[in-house]
């Protein structure tokens, strides 16, 4: 028998490992935090790894979770062992099929990384809201609490489901378990083989459809029999608990780990017992053992099989001495008598005739921390005479006072465990290095290890915090490290941004990457940090990792260096052994990528020790460097009190009362978050500039601004503020300025690349050039502040359909958290400039909803009049319909307001009433005039106390034309939301759809969509996508009455501006599909616009506008805005890793697919040419 390996994996990988081996068909759709399970399964199949029967499972990606569950249902009904992986909204979309699958008594397991469901806000983090929402479907619910349990129960659930014929949801906590790396004993194929009974598999298969033995399943039933038929399944459900326990016992014989339906831990004579399920059980387990060891009569009942809920087993597991039971639910059911587990406990007591008092409460929503301190706090509460019921644990509820108090300083971290916290930047490789360290320690030594990583919602300048534990015993502390004996700060600037040393325990080691030598670092530390070092008696070590990285050719990747320093200082392994292990890991990771990469990493390891120094700290605080306030004092109160706290990583401490009740937040808060993440920023050269504004239109973060203004406004300008005579007749006598927002710029360099103006004497000097940010920061901060104070150009006087004109409009989308060089945001920003002051934006879930609406700060903002886009995200799948709803309101309210204007004509006067009712509102001047008329209207009816006047006062603003925008990515438009999009486009209503087409699911990490072009590699298309890209624009054009445009700003910015303006002006549905470069393409984002040009030059992306209004004039509505293919597709495609990598994994296939893709391009161009040449004059 093969020996079992100890592996360092996370919960997702553990589930996928087992599921892939015991299924035949896997149908998935990506959703955080479950996406990785599907990706692992896809990778196993792509590598030809067989299941336990020796055949490679089929892994397919569907267009939605609804689609995935339908495919799963179909595959199950035809007899294949089938599974899927999902979470949150994904699980909700599967509910209809789940009822069917269960109703048909079908053996199946869904592996769910449990996640919050969007309500007042979306959250990708873990709780049980999703699994609790499927309680009624008839699926068994089985909870795993750790990566090891995930691996074990994934198998047990499958075995049990086959035996019971009841489908199972096997769930574990999103992120806390799905993403926690732990040391897991990997089950062997033999283990799996022994647990899965082939007779049951054959029985499952034989229940499947076959024309050889046909039957009908899925009938429609009437009142006469439906009820009785529904009750037929009862015996199967009644048997489930025994079956599951039987499989658990069988598993114990095979693998040695014994599980129970309800597992009790703690004092045998416990009086106070907590009941819960999921990862929190691990923390509770440790805490209960600790407290029981202290003599407290406390216990914990872990629930594994939650549905069917076996009262008998539940009561059987409870100590007879139990006096009080506290049921903890990781979900919220507003309005219910209590949360689900609480209600089950109450029912169990009632039905079981036990007189144990039950209280219930909520904890851990959206991965809120659950700590030993909270467990202790709850036991303390339970010891009170009148403990709270319907309580909350882990927050401060100062509104309805539900929260249970606890002492946050209570800790049970054992001394034997190395507890290390690392603060890093996403781009510096800290997390990768830490995952590597866990692998080294967990797999190569007898130590146990655990890693949990806090990532960022910002994609540029992302901060990561790694929590690593190493120790001689299995690690159950499923919470962040609050008491660290090793803290590493990989970025010196963090010391001024948040409290890096908060978790450091007295005497801890503090490793700091600093651009200072060991003699000078002390004086450069902020005062507060010095105080902490002295107060806690920390051992300070310093290394200039960036210098070492530079000198060893590692660029800005300091991961290997900091990892080596950690091993050198932490003593987890003997130093030599650790260094050899690091080198072995480097060889393993990079060996296939070439000797050069390996050598550089080796050099970095070798140079680290020579550059790592212990700092002799002073005995007193010497620093005058104060940590600056998180936001400036002029920030609004809400930003000061709430936003700033979240920014400072203190959001956990905000009380309930601080937060909006309905998810409504103020616009324009990114302006208060000065992130200073750019190493270099653009510097303007007025003497070279031709004022084309290409830099401004290209800037993904609205940090290059362009203004033309009266020189009188220059009065009081800072000394270094630049301006130059404005170019163009219409700007006679005015001056122009291009100004950078130095603290918001991400340093992507796109502006420099698109700048067409060069110094004739020195062409490498452009009108805008990158220069180091730090020396320019203060000066340009003042300049930018002055610049913002200069009045905007009068938008009624601007030719908005030109690049230059559009860039004189103030961006109402600024400083988003998108990736540096993002290809989507320039379009979003342009939209905000052109129509933002009167737009309603419906945004599909995805990158644009995250950089557009993720707390703490959001980029949609307002103009000088306080107007701006109003923005919302409903879901992923319903975005078109959601935005359509905006339109319906706008149409109805506008119409009603017009009716009221007519009704109040007498009061308003004919001139004003007619002016309002007949306003074309086709230009900015028209819009401004209508706004003025509406103000007059409001004034005239201000004192009028009639029902019509009251109604009109509330609706008058709808008389100004609203611009409804439905924005989303290709995953939404081509896949999950396509049905709705098609319907909305076909409705004829005036909605504008902007598809940010990155040709891949960007936000969830590069899964294939139907927009992915042929030959490109993506997740679920590891061998290159074999099918061509869907032509969404062409499909829309077939309706004939939809304005359709395909644009690529980098190839033709003027066409992009025109298309947006035309789309918006069209009184009907419009669809603009925008080529958006993305880091998932594997390109140099600085050259993103150049790559767009190549896409167009190669014909891979055709620029066109289809304007139905032209057909009315007897003209062909289709105008091609790009020429035929000028360069081979290869010249475009092989500039991108997504295409190029296939040439190295499967060169023959790459060649074949590229040839076909070239054919796609040629054929599409010919078709478009023919369509554009049709005669519409007849």
């Amino acid at each position: 028998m093969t020996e079992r390996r100890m592996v360092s994996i996370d919960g997702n990988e553990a589930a996928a490992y087992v599921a892939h081996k015991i299924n035949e068909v896997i149908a998935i759709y990506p959703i955080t935090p479950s996406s990785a399970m599907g990706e692992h399964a896809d990778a196993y199949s792509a590598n030809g790894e067989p299941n336990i029967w020796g055949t490679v499972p089929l892994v397919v990606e569907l267009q939605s979770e609804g689609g995935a569950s339908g495919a799963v249902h179909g595959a199950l009904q035809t007899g294949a062992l089938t599974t899927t992986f999902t979470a949150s909204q994904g699980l909700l979309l599967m509910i209809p099929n789940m009822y069917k699958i269960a109703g048909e008594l079908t053996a199946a397991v869904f592996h769910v990384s449990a996640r919050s469901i969007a309500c007042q806000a979306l959250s990708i983090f873990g709780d049980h809201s999703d699994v609790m929402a499927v309680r009624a479907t008839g699926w068994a619910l089985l909870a795993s609490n750790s990566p090891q349990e995930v691996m074990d129960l994934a198998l047990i659930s499958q075995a049990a489901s086959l035996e019971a014929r009841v489908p199972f949801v096997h769930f574990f906590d999103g992120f806390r378990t799905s993403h926690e790396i732990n040391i897991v004993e990997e089950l062997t194929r033999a283990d799996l083989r022994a647990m899965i009974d082939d007779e049951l598999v054959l029985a499952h298969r034989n229940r499947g459809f076959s024309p050889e033995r046909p039957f009908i399943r899925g009938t429609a039933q009437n009142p006469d029999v439906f009820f009785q038929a529904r009750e037929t399944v009862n015996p199967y459900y009644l048997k489930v608990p025994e079956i599951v326990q039987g499989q658990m016992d069988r598993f114990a014989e095979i693998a040695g780990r014994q599980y129970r339906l309800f597992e009790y831990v703690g004092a045998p004579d416990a009086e106070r017992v907590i009941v819960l399920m999921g990862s929190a059980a691990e923390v509770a387990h440790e805490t209960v053992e600790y407290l029981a060891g202290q003599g407290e009569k406390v216990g914990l009942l872990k629930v594994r099989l939650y549905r069917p809920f076996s009262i008998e087993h539940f009561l059987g597991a409870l100590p007879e001495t139990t006096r009080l039971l506290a049921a903890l639910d990781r979900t919220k059911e507003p309005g219910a008598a209590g949360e689900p587990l609480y209600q089950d406990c109450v029912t169990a007591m009632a039905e079981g005739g036990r007189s144990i008092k039950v209280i219930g409460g909520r904890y851990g929503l959206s991965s809120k921390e659950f700590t030993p301190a909270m467990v202790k706090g709850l036991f303390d509460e339970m010891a009170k005479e009148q403990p709270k019921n319907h309580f909350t644990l882990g927050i401060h509820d100062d509104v309805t006072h539900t929260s249970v108090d606890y002492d946050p300083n209570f800790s049970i971290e054992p001394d034997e465990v190395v507890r290390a916290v690392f603060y890093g930047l996403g781009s510096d490789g800290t997390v990768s290095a830490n995952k590597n360290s866990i692998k080294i320690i967990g797999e190569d030594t007898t130590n146990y290890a655990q890693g949990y990583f806090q990532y960022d919602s910002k994609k540029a300048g992302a901060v990561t915090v790694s929590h690593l534990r190493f120790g001689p015993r299995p690690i159950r502390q499923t919470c962040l490290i609050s008491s660290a004996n090793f803290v590493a700060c990989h970025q010196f600037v963090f010391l001024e941004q948040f409290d890096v040393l908060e978790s450091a325990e007295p005497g801890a080691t503090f490793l700091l990457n600093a651009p200072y030598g060991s003699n000078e670092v002390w004086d450069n530390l902020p005062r507060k940090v010095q105080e902490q070092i002295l107060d806690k008696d920390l051992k300070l070590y310093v290394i200039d990792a960036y210098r070492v990285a530079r000198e060893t050719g590692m660029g800005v990747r300091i991961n290997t260096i900091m990892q080596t320093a950690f091993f050198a200082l932490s003593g987890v392994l003997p130093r030599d052994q650790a260094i050899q292990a690091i080198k072995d890991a480097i060889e393993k990771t990079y060996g296939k990528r070439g000797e050069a990469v390996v050598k550089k990493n080796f050099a970095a390891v070798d140079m680290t020790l020579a550059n790592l120094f212990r700092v002799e700290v002073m005995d007193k605080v010497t620093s005058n460097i104060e940590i600056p306030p998180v936001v400036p004092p002029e920030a609004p109160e809400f930003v000061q009190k709430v936003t700033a706290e979240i920014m400072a990583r203190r959001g956990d401490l905000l009380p309930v009362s601080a937060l909006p009740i309905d998810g409504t937040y103020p616009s324009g808060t990114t302006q208060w978050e000065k992130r200073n993440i750019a190493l270099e920023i653009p510097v303007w050269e007025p003497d070279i500039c031709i004022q084309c504004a290409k830099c401004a239109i290209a800037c993904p973060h609205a940090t290059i601004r362009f203004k033309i203004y009266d020189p009188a406004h220059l009065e009081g300008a800072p000394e270094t503020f630049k301006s130059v005579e404005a170019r163009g007749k219409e700007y006679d006598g005015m001056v122009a300025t291009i100004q950078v927002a130095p603290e918001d710029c991400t340093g992507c360099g796109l502006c420099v690349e698109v700048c067409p103006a060069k110094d004739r004497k020195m062409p490498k000097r452009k009108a805008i050039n990158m220069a180091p940010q730090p020396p320019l920061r203060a000066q340009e901060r003042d300049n930018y502040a002055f610049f913002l104070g200069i009045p905007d150009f009068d938008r009624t006087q601007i030719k908005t359909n030109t690049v230059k004109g559009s860039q004189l409009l103030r961006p109402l989308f600024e400083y988003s958290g998108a990736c540096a060089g993002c290809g989507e945001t320039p379009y979003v920003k342009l939209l905000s400039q052109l129509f933002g002051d009167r737009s309603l934006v419906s945004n599909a879930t995805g990158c644009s909803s995250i950089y557009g609406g993720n707390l703490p700060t959001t980029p949609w903002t307002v103009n000088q009049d306080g107007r701006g886009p109003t923005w919302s995200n409903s879901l992923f799948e319903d975005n078109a319909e959601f935005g359509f709803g905006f339109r319906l309101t706008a149409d109805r309210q506008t119409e009603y307001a017009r009716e009221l204007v007519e009704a109040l004509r007498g009061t308003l006067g004919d001139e004003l009433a007619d002016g309002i009712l007949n306003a074309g509102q086709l230009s900015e001047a028209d819009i401004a005039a209508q706004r003025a008329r509406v103000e007059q209207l409001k004034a005239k009816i201000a004192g009028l106390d009639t029902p019509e006047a009251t109604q009109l006062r509330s609706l008058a603003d709808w008389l100004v034309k609203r611009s409804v925008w439905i924005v989303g990515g290709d995953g939404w438009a081509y896949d999950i939301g396509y049905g709705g999009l098609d319907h909305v486009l076909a409705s004829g209503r005036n909605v504008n759809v902007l598809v940010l087409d990155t040709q891949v699911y960007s936000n969830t990490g590069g899964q294939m969509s139907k927009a992915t072009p042929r030959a490109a590699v993506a997740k679920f298309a590891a061998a290159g996508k074999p099918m061509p890209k869907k032509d969404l624009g062409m499909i829309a054009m077939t309706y004939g009455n939809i304005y359709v445009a395909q644009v690529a700003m980098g190839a033709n910015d003027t066409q992009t501006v025109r298309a947006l303006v035309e789309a918006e002006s069209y009184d009907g549905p419009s669809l603009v599909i925008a080529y958006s470069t993305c880091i998932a393409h594997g390109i140099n984002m600085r050259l993103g616009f150049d790559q767009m040009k190549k896409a167009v030059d190669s014909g891979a992306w055709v620029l066109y506008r289809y304007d139905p209004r032209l057909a009315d004039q007897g003209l062909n509505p289709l105008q091609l805005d790009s020429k035929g293919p000028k360069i081979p597709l290869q010249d475009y495609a092989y500039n991108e890793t997504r295409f190029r990598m296939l040439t190295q994994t499967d060169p023959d296939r790459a060649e074949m697919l590229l040839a076909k893709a070239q054919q796609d391009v040629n054929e599409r161009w010919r078709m478009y040419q023919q369509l554009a040449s049709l005669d519409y004059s007849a």
Partner: protein
Amino acid sequence: MVDLATTYMGMSLKSPVVPSASPLSAELDNIKRMEDAGAGAVTLHSLFEEQIESEAEALAYYMERGTEMYQEALTYFPPVQDYRREPEEYVEHIRKAKEAVDVPIIASLNGITPGGWISYAKRFEEAGADAVELNVYFIPTNFHLMSYDVEDLYVKIMKKVKSQVTIPVAMKLSPYFSAMPHMASMLDAEGADGLVLFNRFYQPDLDIENLEVTPNLILSRSAEMRLPLRWIAILYGHLDASMALTTGIHTPEDVIKAIMAGADIANVCSVLLKGGIGKISELVTGLTLWMEEHEYSSIEEMKGSLSHKAVAEPTAFERANYMKVLLSVPSTITI
């Protein structure tokens, strides 16, 4: 029947016409067609140092960029188990080429530093390459670099490669050495098995509209063979190393000139890029006809017959040549 066989770096070739490194030999079918058309050997397209060193880095960079920082997308590409990088592809290409044809396969390595890329020569040998051609494509832009530093670089790289392989190694040189005979004899003495004269740098062009430097490929013409022709003629008979003439061979007559000057083989490239691989057979046929017409029985008989050593007027290869041309200009020039 004339004997077209020649010996180049110890290898017996059935003909002196050998395609030089070009994209054409990246295709296996083309290599077969080259053999069928009468090529004596085939030089594969170059594997560049940049491909070996930088490509690996670039791939590592783009595969890793953006990973492990944003919670919903910890990676952006599917994991790849069997990653075949370009150098690996090249090695595989050698193997396939060797299986496909009988003529010797000369692998080509192109780089400018004595770095890790050189180790690929060993891989070439293991894959079956019959010889290695080293193309040191070095443009000295450093004003402090002395001429002997440059010469030393070539020798170092050549020696490093020689130390790793047992197959013959040819050095492809540029014409820009101030003391070509010394340079050649130094390489010869240090073990070079062949010299390929000369490397033809693709000179960049200037885009005066966009104020940019633009890469520009201009194919060679026959007249350009005069430069290597002279130096081969001068070097012939002084070295142990074989010699290949490259640049400007377009006609059978050009091949004959190359051989008569002292080259063991005539490398062809531009002519094939312009006229197709079939041009090889035109060259071979033309060469055969010419030899028959002029009653030469073998290549060996022709080799070096018009070299500096052999001709009656060796000074014609020296500066006098230039003067003679000048003197031959008619004296009555009308302006």
